């Protein structure tokens, strides 16, 4: 299972803050997961179009080619604006 988290404007647009997902066979990195989620259609298309989408794997900033394994925590969010 993957734990997937969405934050801020992305959480609002997608209408959820978290979900659990069985890691599909063909998905081995962040890019693959993004394609899978985008293919859901509707508001999920935003994952492909949102400006400067950020990703974290196991609470560390990640890249599109960062590998994914069962049990990972993956997060998608817009650029940070704290401070």
């Amino acid at each position, binding site marked *: 299972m993957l734990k997937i*988290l969405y934050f801020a404007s992305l959480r609002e647009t997608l209408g959820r803050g978290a979900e659990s997902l069985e890691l599909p066979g063909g998905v081995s990195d962040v890019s693959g997961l993004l394609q899978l989620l985008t293919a859901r259609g509707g508001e999920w298309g935003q994952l492909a179009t949102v400006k*400067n989408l950020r990703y974290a794997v196991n*609470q560390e900033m990640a890249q599109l080619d960062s590998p994914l394994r069962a049990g990972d925590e993956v997060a998608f*969010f817009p*650029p*940070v604006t*704290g*401070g």
Partner: protein
Amino acid sequence: MPVRVQEADFDVSAELAALRQGDARIGALATFVGVVRDMNDGSGVSEMTLEHYPGMTEKALEAIVIEAKGRWNIFDALVIHRVGRLLPTEQIVFVAVSGAHRGETFAACEFIMDYLKTRAPFWKREVTAEGARWVDARETDDTAAKRWQG
């Protein structure tokens, strides 16, 4: 713990005393307080909500403090960041750095703020007369953070 994420407000004097712990080697304390403004990008702001990524936020802030300690000859650093609903003039963030000499504490304090602004998972949602909106990241914050690289 050099890093705290909390809803409660903080008192600068009390936090500085806790950071210092009476250590008589300290000659310099550089600090920064970020505050909610009643205006942003030309719109009046009546309140703000700060969202964060629990767990990752603390890790990211701790990593920034560790990097600052590696770059400069400082004794200690403290970062407090508030989350939840905040009103104009309320304190948002506090960074304090202790050291023997001022130059290194100033640099480390500014570095921590610049990295916090671009690497710590916080998001601001403002309420303005035109409605609520998520604050956009600033290019100037990216530029400020990039100064410390290479």
